[in-house]
Each structure stands twice: as C-alpha cells, then as structure tokens.
C-alpha cells in the first residue's frame, strides 16, 4: 500500500524490504554511529537486494554493512566514519579495490542536494567545493552529470550548481512516531529533514509508537509529517549497536568487534553469518548481543540521554 492507502502503515522490516527493489537508490538517515537503520540494513542483506545506490551525509555502520555485504554499486556521500572506532572499513576497502563507484561530496553539499530534492528544485547553487580536488574528481568521474559551474544571474558570482537528490527510498530512524507516521526526533537532526523529504518514498523506523494525541501535544516537534510516510517499522533497539539519543548508547563492545571483523573480508563473512544471516529477525540479533540484559545496560539515563 502506498502512503495514500487506507491500510495501516505499521509494518515489519521484512515486509518493507520486500517492497524495495534491487537497484534502488536508498538514502540513509544515520550519521556515523548514531541512529542507523540497522534493522532495515540487516533485512536488505538477508533479502540480498543488490546493485543499490546509497546516499548519506556522513556514512557510518549502516552503509559499511551494506557495502561489506557486496550489495552497493554506487555510493554518494559527504564523508564517512565510525567516530573513535575508526574509518569505515568495508567502504574504504571497496574503494581501494575499485569494487564500487563513489561520489565524494561534503556535509553541506550533500545537505543542499537533499534540500533541493525536498523543495522540488532540480538544482541548487553552493559556494563549497570550488578550487578543490573534490570538485575535480566529481567532474571527471561519476559526478560529472551532477555538478556544473555556473554564475549568479544577478551578481555574476561563481557557484557550483548541484543536481537535486531524489532517492527512491529514504530511511530514517526516529525516537517516536504515531501509526500515521508523524515523527519526532530528539537531539540534533543533521540532514534528516531534508534527506527524508527528498525521498520519493519515505520509510521510518521508530523506537516507540505513540498515539496521535501524544504528537498533538507538541506539534512543533513533528519533523516528518505522517502524510509523507509510506510505512512505519516499529523496532525497539532497532539501531543497536549505534546510539539513539535518550533511548540507548552505542554498544562500544560490539562496535569494536565489528571493526575487528571488518578489517578482513573472510572474518567479515563470519560476522555477517552470525549476526545477520543466522538471525531470522532483529529480535534474534538482539538476543545474540546479550538480549534484554544487554539492552538494559545500553539504555540511556533519562537526564543525560545516553
């Protein structure tokens, strides 16, 4: 059912991923090790959705998992990192072995590309990128059709025009949503509003489903309105081992374990087998991480938010 349907929007990750075709352009709303849509990423791997184009402001564990699993053919990104846990190992290896095409932008130019998409503009100008190898590589490579030097029609100032990004599917992990998809996000929102609204389809993963009355109590906090949302995946601890502010902290232990395995393709396959393929769903995965007891340890202090 589309966003305009009358059937409920609350679905499982498996159902949602069944509706995402191989070859799709998926925009991910995570940032490094925060609010990654891990539940959906695992499902994309289990269902072996291939030849994906992934775009993301600052790629993190989510994209690294997909690239490591060999599902990504094209990556459009502003940067990448697992914060203190190091660079993104699978992404960097894939780039070094040239097994994926990569368009390197910057945080702001990615945000502007999403903004243009969200506003229905086919392009937007920017004053970054100029005089850098970032721009030269885009012009000479995969980004050739997406950047174009131009002048302001009023001032004559030089700009780089960026082509809008309108992903086939935008995915965002949020703290709360109601059954209609009205979403509220705690903490900073990086480029989530633009990335979400740029998508032709928008699917959210919510830690908690709240009533519409809850949303109506603070409508100024609704970052994504329900009518834009096609499906809501209700998945508590859906971003583990990445952090969700005010819900739980990143799982440092598991992130270290991930990085250790991801350094080496063979060990990475062991990781995927154990934590993805051998899990029927996210609950089984959480069990492997230590289940309820471990989740309790990761749970955020209500004052600190981590």
């Amino acid at each position, binding site marked *: 059912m589309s966003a305009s349907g009358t059937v409920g929007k609350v679905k499982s990750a498996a159902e949602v991923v069944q509706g995402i075709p191989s070859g799709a352009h998926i925009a991910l709303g995570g*940032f*490094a*090790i*925060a609010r990654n849509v891990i539940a959906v990423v695992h499902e994309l791997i289990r269902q072996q959705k291939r030849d994906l184009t992934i775009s993301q*402001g*600052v790629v*993190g564990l989510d994209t690294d998992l997909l690239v490591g699993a060999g599902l990504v053919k094209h990556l459009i*990104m*502003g*940067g*990448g*990192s697992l*914060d*203190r*846990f190091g*660079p993104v190992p699978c*992404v*960097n290896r894939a*780039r*070094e072995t040239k097994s994926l095409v990569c368009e*390197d*932008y*910057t*945080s*702001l*130019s990615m*945000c*502007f590309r999403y*903004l243009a998409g969200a506003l229905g503009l086919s392009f937007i100008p*920017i*004053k*970054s*990128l*100029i*005089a*850098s*190898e*970032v721009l030269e590589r885009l012009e000479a490579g995969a980004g050739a059709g997406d950047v174009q030097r131009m002048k302001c029609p009023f001032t004559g*100032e*030089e700009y780089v025009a960026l082509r809008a990004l309108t992903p086939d599917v935008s995915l965002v992990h949020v703290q709360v949503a109601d059954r209609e998809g009205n979403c509220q996000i705690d*903490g*900073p*929102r*990086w*480029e*989530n*509003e*633009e990335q979400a609204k740029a998508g032709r389809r928008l699917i959210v993963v919510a830690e908690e489903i709240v009533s519409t009355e809850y949303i109506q109590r603070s409508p100024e906090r609704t970052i994504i309105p329900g009518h834009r949302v096609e499906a809501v995946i209700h998945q508590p601890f859906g971003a583990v081992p*990445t*952090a969700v*502010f*005010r819900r739980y*902290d*990143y799982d440092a232990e598991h992130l270290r374990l991930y990085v250790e395995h991801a350094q080496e393709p063979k060990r990475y396959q062991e990781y995927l087998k154990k934590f993805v393929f051998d899990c029927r769903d996210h609950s089984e995965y959480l069990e492997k991480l230590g289940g309820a007891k471990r989740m309790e340890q990761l749970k*955020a202090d209500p004052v*600190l*938010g*981590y």
Partner: protein
Amino acid sequence: MSSMQVSEGTKGKELVPGIRATEIMAAAGARELRDGEVVIVGLGLPEVATVLAKRTHAPRLAALLEVGVMNSVPKDTPVGLADSRIFYRATCWSGFLDVMGMNLHRGVVDAGFLGALELDRFGNINTTLLKQESGKVRYINGSAGGNDVASLAKRVMVIMRHEKRKLPLAVAHLTSPGFVGGRSRQELGLRGGGPWRVITDMAVLGFDSVTHSAALVSLHPGIRLEELIENTGFPLHIPKEVPATPLPTAEELRLLREEIDPKRVYLR
C-alpha cells in the same frame, strides 16, 4: 568526524618540564579566538581550546557543531560528533542546514577548527586518502564538513601533529582548499578567508600575506628551529626574530587540568 578528530601521538610529551605539548597547543588555540565570535568546532583539542577560551577571555563565544548542536556543555567525554555525550546542555539542536547552511554558508562563522591527514605549504588540507610509497591508495574519511569550513569560514585553524610526512610540499588529495597554487582566496572564488593558523606540537604556523605560503609564527619552547625545519616537508618563511609560543598561564593550566580535561582524554 575524522576531519576534526583529536591529534594523536603527542601522548604525554613535555616540551618544558611540567608542561605538555598538548597543553601549549590548547592554549595557543584558545588565544586565537576572540570574545563574541562564532566558531565551528570539532572534538579533541579544538573543543578543549574553545572551552578554555570560553572560561577565560571569551565567555560569549558561540561554539557550533556541524550536526546541529550549539554551546553544549558535555559532562562526559564524547567519542565523536555522533556521540550523544556532545549533545548535553546545548542551547540549540538543529541540523546541518542551520549550522553549515544558515551560519557557515551565510558567512557568520568567524573561525573553524579542522584536523588534517596532510597539510601543504599553501594550507591545502587532505582528509580523504593517503598514498603509500608503493603508489597504493588508502582511503580514510573524506571531507565531511572539512571542505565547507575551509571554503567558507573567515579564519581556518588546523591543529595537528608536526611530522614531515603530514606536512608535504603538496597534499596527496586536495580535499579542502587553502591558498591553492599560492593564489588569493578572491582569485580562487572562495568566500572564506582561508587558513590562518596551523597549531602543531612544535610551532604555530601562519601564511605570508603576499606569497600565501606557510610562515613560522612562533616556536614552542623546547623546540629548536633546526628540528622544526627538519620535520617540515615544505619550505617555511622564517622571521628574523623567532618568537616563542607563550606558555599557558598558571590559571590556564589549572583550568585545563582540573576542569576541562581532568581525565586527560585529549591532553595526553
């Protein structure tokens, strides 16, 4: 973000008895900030320097993080910009569009702190990849906000370790522009003022106003000029009289050690 991460390898190195290189770097960074300015900060020494400035001469410094966090007062040490620890007690949570668009691109950001894998004589920064001697490329992080800050902030400050291979004649990948090819920022079509200071564990560098190539501003106490030149991969303008980088004051040291980074997470 990597482009703003803590500089490594200065662990515990004392330049003069009882004062670590990292402490001199933090104090030098703080002194580059003026009260009431708007600064885009990263984690590590830039954050430490900013907090030091706020607690001393610049109480009204506005400190922005690119993810959309302003003036946070972390209680625990964050591991990166995506770490919830850095959100604590902020006065504003917004996003990239606000911080990087409506502040940085708008032209109201006075200073930006960046890290670097490599920085060359014209202040160009590489945070994308390293080329090994075999010619093999190793990817690291990319730009994230680095290119944006380098392009648009009024002054760019880099805090990094002083090593010959990290300070080459030309960067292996020009991620974030300084005075590319020795040209002025205006010639390059860039709005921001470009690289202003490079604060290392040996010296503070600046850029010659005519040639736009790197110049020694001050040498840290305990570092010899020859040692500096030996460890720099590009020619440096050296002034006739080489000033010494001021040591942190007793009060600055107290703040750094007792209040700002008591666990020495960054002041290693």
